[in-house]
């Protein structure tokens, strides 16, 4: 019974923890401009992240080594360092976007400028990272993040014309948009679903929670049930935007447009659920990406790391996270638009995807590390297909960004 509860808890936190500011903003932007014609990308991204997160988790559970230790071990010091520099920068962009996201949610509720909330959000994230237990922070933000389910409920309350919506699911470029813009947003959605910090966090989290070979079943359930259900939340946000914002040609420039359909569907109560869900989801993602900034650097250099240790026992790990948070807050205080930072962060995530995913695929096939828990044929076949997609998305991202003026 206790085991069943733990399993349920793990799945629920995976659902609530799937969505972050990148998913929130990108899904709503895409829904309001392209209707449901890009839903297939979210589905694709969810399959990809489930596949690779499961692999990274399995490597961590079997070998006891987290993702960036493996990246260095397999790529060597030089290529590993180049990878670290790129991954750390992209992750820092994600941290910046998430902290900006927390400020945006508080602005939505209080009407007070995000500038005031940014330092408070940064401080709040640091205090939790500094003091809270790993399981506590994961469970609290994951469960409260389930408030986002109100977006799925709103889809039905809005009573859309299903016969009009269903044909939109077929991938096609809407007459009002360019082909290049369509593909640019396809890459953004893909990057939002497969953000690299999720893998760093998932594999390092496995070591924080002392996974072993025995935990493989539980981990698989979290990933294969939790992530797809989380992806459904992401799709619900897009459907809400497609039903309410698209017909009225409302552009998504802040979170107030993201929640507009929910308010229209369920009034104040629904708004309250959406706000709690968004705050928890974004705060949780801020914690996860901050931890990932520490995980990547500490694992490359072989330093002591982990939330299960006292900060003084993982001193350099905590110093890295503190510096990362300070940089993120300073960047936001220059007055950059957090929504714009978010949109860029998901595209740069897409560019950096091969750096994370190729080494994971190599090591999960390594006999020395994995023994009998190596990838099977089916996993490898699927992974190679995804690797091809990841490479295409990564290579096409910058040219498309230039051609479309970042999706204008």
């Amino acid at each position, binding site marked *: 019974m206790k085991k069943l509860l733990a399993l349920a808890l793990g799945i629920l936190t995976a659902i609530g923890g799937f969505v972050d500011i990148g998913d929130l903003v990108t899904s709503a932007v895409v829904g309001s401009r392209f209707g449901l014609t890009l839903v297939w990308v979210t589905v694709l991204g969810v399959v990809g992240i489930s596949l690779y997160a499961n692999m990274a988790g399995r490597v961590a559970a079997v070998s006891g080594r987290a993702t960036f230790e493996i990246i260095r071990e397999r790529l060597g*010091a030089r290529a590993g360092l180049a990878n670290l520099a790129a991954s750390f920068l992209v992750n820092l962009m994600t941290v910046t976007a998430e902290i900006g996201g927390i400020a945006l949610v508080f602005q939505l509720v209080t009407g007070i400028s995000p500038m005031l909330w940014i330092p408070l959000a940064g401080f709040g994230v640091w205090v939790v990272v500094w003091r809270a237990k*790993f399981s506590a922070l994961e469970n609290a933000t994951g469960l409260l993040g389930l408030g986002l389910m109100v977006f799925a409920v709103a889809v039905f309350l809005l009573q859309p014309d299903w016969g009009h919506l269903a044909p939109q699911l077929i991938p096609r470029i809407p007459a009002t948009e360019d082909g290049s813009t369509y593909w640019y947003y396809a890459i953004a959605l893909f990057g939002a679903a497969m953000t690299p910090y999720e893998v760093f966090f998932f594999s390092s989290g496995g070591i924080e929670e002392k996974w072993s070979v025995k935990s493989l079943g539980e981990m698989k359930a979290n990933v294969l049930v939790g992530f797809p259900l989380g992806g459904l939340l992401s799709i619900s946000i897009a459907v809400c935007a497609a039903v309410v914002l698209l017909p009225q040609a409302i552009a998504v420039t802040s979170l107030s447009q993201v929640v507009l359909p929910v308010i229209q569907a369920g009034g104040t109560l629904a708004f309250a659920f959406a706000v709690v869900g968004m705050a928890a989801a974004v705060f949780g993602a801020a914690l996860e990406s901050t931890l990932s900034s520490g995980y990547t650097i500490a694992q490359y250099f*072989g330093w002591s*790391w982990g939330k299960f240790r006292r*900060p003084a026992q993982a*001193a350099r790990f905590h110093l890295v996270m503190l510096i990362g948070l300070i940089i993120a807050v300073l960047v936001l205080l220059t007055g950059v638009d957090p929504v714009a930072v978010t949109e860029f962060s998901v595209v740069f995530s897409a560019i950096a995807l091969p750096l994370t995913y190729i080494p994971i695929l190599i090591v999960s096939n390594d006999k*020395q590390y994995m023994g009998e828990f190596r990838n099977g044929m089916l996993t490898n076949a699927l992974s190679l297909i995804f690797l091809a997609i990841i490479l295409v998305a990564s290579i096409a991202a910058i040219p498309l960004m230039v051609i479309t003026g970042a999706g204008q």
Partner: protein
Amino acid sequence: MRAGRVVDAEFQLIDRQVIDSDGVPIVAVDDLEVSDVPWNEDLPRGTEAPVVENLLSGPTLGTRIFGGRPPESRWQRIAWKHVVDVGTALTLDAPADSFDASWTERWVRNHVVGKIPGGHHDPE
């Protein structure tokens, strides 16, 4: 020296994580120091093969990537005799704080992180 187990230095030692006797990560193996062999001359029959003497860390990482060679006084060494296991990580026979290689961790602990309130508390 145990016979019968072949370890590939390039593949299984370099860039591996080093953990102490309590499982705490200390460094990654940035480079290896092997015993001297005469350079540029024919070796007489029966010369002993060079052996790994020390694991190196710290400044050698920079020179391994960008070239050059740090002055020998700045090499951070962990003597090979401390290595008790070679697996997915190298395990040492003593706690992290007893090795010079972890001096930056101790410095940050004593001067920065340990001074922030709560730095020495268990997470709650």
